[in-house]
């Protein structure tokens, strides 16, 4: 056991455990700072860890770029020149990349939001009344596609009462909507939120009620901390686990092989 690890390393290792061999995993790019670490850094590190431990055939997709060689990261993940020249197995037009979702071939879509509710519905469109919003945000991007079609979504969130709300102001990404069976009733035939990852814990969804439930607390995090920072009632069962700490081998892999420059987990740009 290593005690010398950062929260983003713990999360990358935890996410990697839940990735399955041969799955296609979609990761978006385009954000900066802490949002970049959550949306890109942690998922990409997790993909490489999974490939090196139990999922050699895992296929990451970054927009139109398919199965890039994660051992040769470009010096910047935002520079088109670098992205286009990154060793990858395919680069396909964006419209076809989105068809992968609609065709039902996407295993995991990584998503995030300004708000999430107990059923995993997400909002990145507007805060407040939609017709007279307090804050207009950027718009759905491809989140609606991720949440409609990916076999499961992995949601990375900042964990505060402002983000974890009883009801989202706009559903830009469909979770379990109003409860069990509702996705199917509106015509969404697969998918739904899988896991939610925050700095405090990992959450999943109760099969009977489709509501969010604490799966594991990160080492040293008290249950009260999670409850205090969540704006709705979480399902708290008797069998809450402790999120496993990364092993020294995993930490070494991350720091020496996967992300030696801090490009992913520190959002460093060269």
């Amino acid at each position, binding site marked *: 056991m290593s005690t010398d690890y950062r929260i983003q390393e713990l999360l990358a290792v935890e996410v990697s455990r839940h990735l399955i061999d041969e799955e296609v995993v979609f990761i978006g790019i385009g954000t900066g700072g802490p949002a970049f670490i959550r949306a890109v850094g942690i998922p990409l590190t997790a993909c490489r860890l999974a490939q090196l431990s139990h999922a050699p055939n895992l296929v990451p997709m970054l927009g139109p770029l398919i199965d890039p060689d994660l051992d040769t990261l470009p010096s910047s993940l935002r520079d088109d020149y670098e992205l286009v020249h990154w060793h990858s197995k395919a680069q396909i037009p*964006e419209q076809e990349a*989105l068809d992968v979702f609609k065709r039902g071939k996407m295993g995991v879509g990584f998503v995030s939001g300004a708000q999430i509710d107990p059923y995993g519905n997400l909002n990145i469109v507007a805060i407040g009344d939609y017709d007279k919003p307090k804050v207009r945000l950027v718009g*759905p*991007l491809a989140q609606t*596609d991720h949440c409609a079609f990916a076999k499961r979504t992995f949601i990375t969130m900042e964990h505060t009462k402002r983000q974890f709300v009883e009801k989202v102001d706009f559903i830009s*990404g469909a979770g379990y909507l109003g409860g069990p069976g509702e996705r199917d009733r509106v015509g969404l035939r697969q998918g739904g939120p899988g896991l939610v990852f925050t700095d405090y814990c990992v959450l999943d969804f109760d099969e009977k009620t489709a509501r969010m439930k604490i799966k594991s607390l990160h080492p040293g995090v008290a249950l009260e901390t999670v409850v205090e920072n969540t704006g709705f009632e979480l399902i708290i069962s008797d069998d809450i686990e402790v999120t496993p700490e990364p092993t020294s081998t995993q930490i070494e892999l991350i720091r020496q092989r996967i992300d030696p420059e801090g490009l992913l987990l520190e959002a460093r740009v060269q």
Partner: protein
Amino acid sequence: MATSNASMTGSSNLVKKDKRASLADAVRLIEDGSTVGIGGSLIRRHPMAVIYEMIRQNKRDLTLLGWNNAVDMDLLIGAGCVKAVKTAYVGMAMLGLGHNFRRAVESGEVKVFEHSESTAIDAFRAGSMGWSFVPTKTPLGSGLADHNEEIKFMDCPYTGDPYCVLPAFAPDVAIIHAHTADACGNVQLDSKRELDNEVDTLIAKSANKVIVSVEQVVSEDAIYQNPELTILPKFFVDCVVEIPLGAHPTACDCRYDYDLEFLSKYQEYAKSPETFKEFLKRYVFDVDDHYQYLDLIGLQHLFSIQRPKEIS
């Protein structure tokens, strides 16, 4: 020879049509109140010189169509040219929210027809095929289906499965930026390019009129050498405008990167309507044309965003 050919066919005008136009003349094709499809995605390859000129010509009441927009739409909105947008995103990528967009939507000045990336792209796809609508499952259960009044519902006539349907995007004018074209309007992109922007072809094909700005106008022979690089044959194109660095401050694939320093400055100016007026005065109204704009940015700075030259 030309004389004898002409006498054989009875025509005295066998010259191929030259579609080159000045920036100002091309932009005059865009009428107030029209719908405009804008090429590019995030902060990549938007037809920015055309957009600056639209502001200079004081276009009004435009409806903008896109799928992933940034400084392109934010600028037009901040300049008061826009009444509605139909797109999946207006933001500044790693630089945060689009301030003008945010203010205009919060005040109700600009109406948003909410889209996801695939619904906007499929609406262009439908337009590019001459369809009037397209089915999609993406908006089912989401706020798009509740709030975008253009999205309607339909069951599949074969399986009964529920779908949403969208009207096609068929803009009056499409504006896109590409790498090269000949004078006749055969448009090409370098083989090494960011494939996010392949949607540009659909945007152009869905429109009634197409304005293409290019980094460079090339000879017919240059087009003949690599016909596989042509993304739009000339019959889709109405106007070709040669504008080097015409996507600045957005990126142009492997030719030049986005100008993060300039975009950060833009974000500062955009923080209030008053300071944004200063931006418009300095970079749009007080410059006569695109070359004066480039002078203002400065040669040294423009070289700093150049990328290694490709040999195709």
